[in-house]
């Protein structure tokens, strides 16, 4: 059963075509990894699905509903959450405040102007649970700019999970991480429940082949190949243009 389907997505900045004719399906519960050289249009695709960028042509369907022209907040409310390639947090707020904002958006009462945010125990408990889920230990009242880079990457995922998504979009969750941090990120992703579908961009081939149920290869804005990891590993064209560079 497909959770998300894009049909012939096309997007261009002036004469620069970033995605052309991208048709892609995410099945319920699957870990779908997108790989491809830099500038292949991977992040642009995620931005189109997340509503940060609006497609020139084509459709995006979330369980049968056309969400192509929806603004990002509506897409988030309908169950797609995302992380960003570069940390995109609230650096001056505390770890807990970051998560509370995201929890409040989904199941809280963000228009409440009279109760004290710090007394909203249900929201805070949920935020603390998320903190544990993404393995951030230590003082939750630290401002986020005091967290290590790796912890900030984990918090990115925490913010996304707070939206209780059915589909999680991860944009290079391990980029810039040390080997140890990467390892714990893989563990974190592996620990996410199978009711959640994941569409993720990744460069680190160890991560890709550890996590993926299905791999889609992007090349200059187009889908070059898509299939189970074993199939992709043996695809001659993919080896030539992409995996070949790794040798």
């Amino acid at each position, binding site marked *: 059963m497909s959770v998300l389907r894009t049909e012939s997505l096309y997007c261009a900045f002036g004469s620069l075509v970033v995605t052309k004719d991208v048709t892609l399906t995410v099945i319920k519960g699957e870990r779908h990894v997108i790989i491809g050289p830099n500038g292949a249009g991977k992040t642009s695709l995620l931005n189109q699905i*997340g*509503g*940060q*960028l609006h497609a020139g042509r084509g459709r995006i369907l979330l369980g049968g509903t056309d969400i192509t022209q929806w*603004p*990002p*907040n*509506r897409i*988030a*409310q309908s169950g797609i*959450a*995302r992380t*960003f390639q570069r940390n*995109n*947090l*609230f*650096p*001056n*707020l*505390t770890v807990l*405040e970051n998560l*509370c*904002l*995201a929890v*409040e*958006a*989904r199941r*809280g*009462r*963000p*228009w*409440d*102007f*009279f*109760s*004290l*945010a*710090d007394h*909203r125990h249900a*929201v805070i408990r949920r935020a603390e649970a998320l903190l544990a889920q993404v393995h951030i230990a230590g003082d939750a009242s630290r*401002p986020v700019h005091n967290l290590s880079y790796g912890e900030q990457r984990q918090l990115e995922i925490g*913010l*996304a999970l*707070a*939206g209780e998504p059915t589909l999680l979009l991860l944009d290079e969750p391990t980029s810039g991480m040390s080997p140890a941090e990467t390892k714990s990120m893989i563990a974190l992703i592996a620990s996410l429940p199978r009711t959640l579908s994941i569409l993720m961009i990744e460069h680190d081939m160890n991560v890709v082949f550890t996590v993926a149920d299905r791999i889609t290869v992007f090349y200059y804005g187009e889908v070059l190949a898509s299939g189970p990891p074993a199939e992709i590993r043996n695809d001659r064209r993919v080896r030539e243009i992409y995996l070949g560079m790794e040798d």
Partner: protein
Amino acid sequence: MEFFLEQILNGLVYGVLLFLTAAGLSLIFGLMNVVSLAHGSFFMMGGYVAYSLYRLTGSFWAALLLAPVPIVAAGVAMEVIFLRPLYRRGHLDQVLLTFGFTFIFLDAVQTIWGRDVLALPPPAVFDGVVALGTGVFSSYRLFLIGFGLAIALLLWLFLDRSQLGARVRAGVDDAAMAGGLGCNISALFTAIFGAGVALAALGGVAAGPIFGIYPGEDAEILIPAFIVIVVGGMGSLRGAFVGSLLIGEADTFGNAYMPQLALFLIYLVMAIVLLVRPQGLFGIKHGLAASPSGSTPAAPLPSRRALAIGLIGVAALVIYPLLVADYQRSLVTELLIFAIVAMSLDLLLGFTGLMSLGHAAFFGLGAYVVIVLGTFFDFNAWFGVALGIGAAALAALVIGYFCVRASGIPFLMLTLAFSQLVYSVALKWRDVTGGSDGIGLAVKPSLFGFTLSNSLTMYFVALFFFVLCFLGLRRLVSSPLGRVFIGIRENEARMLAIGYATRRYKLASFTIGGAVAGLAGGLYAVFNGFISPDAVYWSASGDILIMVMLGGAGTLLGPVFGAAAFLLMKNLVSTYSEHWLAIIGVVFVACVLFFPGGFWGTLRQVRIMTREKVPA
């Protein structure tokens, strides 16, 4: 038919003058992401310098050619010395800095040339009229149209054909990239800034023979030029050109055929463009840029110590009026009222990250409602205050609806433009508002039998509302809704991505802030018994802004102290100096340069730093 043709030509004259101002503004914005509020001042100063040059040489042409030279020198000096150090610090600081300079320039102009309207005669060659069908048309105006169109053509050729023009275009597209490709970006910035100033100064000279030269010309050209840029699209020369002609014609035809509505016509054009094509007619659609990160930490929890200090403060404010004379009592009453306005702007600026430069509009609206209803319908003043709050909230809701479609600098330009609309209405609707003379209440209102002409009663009324607003706003910023506002200030794009319809929340903040300002305006009307359009002029919005910045945006108590410091300083200085304007300007500039967090923010920063030094 002749009348119609004449209006078209007059529209072109105005359009060409707008273009000379808007072209520079737009290029500077496109390249440096800065909007220079001093741009209107350069226009105005161009006229004044030309006047003096004309008196000296007797030649209009010498004045036209030479006047831009000292103006460009002043503009370039401002860019190099003051703006350049701020490039790393976010563009809003730079905008505020140029705002400070508008006060300094205005004061300089009034000191040197006085406040009267000066006349610059047109050159002898164009001193006649040209037959136009059965009518006539000033030949100077025809010359001006040709002059403006020629400059537009030259600018286009320069940008499109020359090597330097190509660099400018590259810079507009992506300054960082152009810098990486070997352009000397800061030299390019300075050159374009200087060129923009030269165009504005030329416009000021050229406008002299038609409109005269007077203080206040700066805002009169700047605001429509903003509207031109919003309509035409930021950073687009073609947009500035088409927008100028469109706005010039719309305004001229409005004045000719429906003078009552002319004021609103160009705003209507702008509103339609904003709704249909928010990026402007020729603008490029940009994604939501990462918002400049606020440096202020979240509001601290109300601790027991804060409560104790607060109670002592209130106790002092209760005892104080019993010990002093009428004058001191009234001074602190005024101070409490302005503290309320400053806090209301802080909700927008410090907590939601909305840089509004039109907040005085809501304050003035609240005041006008009380006085106008009291004068014409004998309304009870307290009923008037309540209606004033409602009117201010409604105006904020409508104005905000358009403004929150933009963010950052375009937002600031829109709030400024709309507030000038309120100012124009206050100025021109003479039957109701008394025009520039203002309007006063004949009888002081009373409260439960105590007349408010008693300074003690008025003091306690103001104190009551001040404490009420302070506690209410503090509660608001600590509530979930307040946290949403802070989240938007910190990172609006991420707020969207986690599911917040940020526009709605920004509109809510804008409306609440407007309503509270309306309350303060109503209190001010009761206290002062008089209101004039000066209270809603853009410099009044600037006063409120400087109160907030002086005290520290993002802390509720900071603006209270900022308002106090500002008003005390104003009282002190204006008793023995006429250069109050220049002093505000200098304080503004110094504040932006040296105290970006304001008094309270700096204090808090010091406390955080000293705390961090202690090993845990």
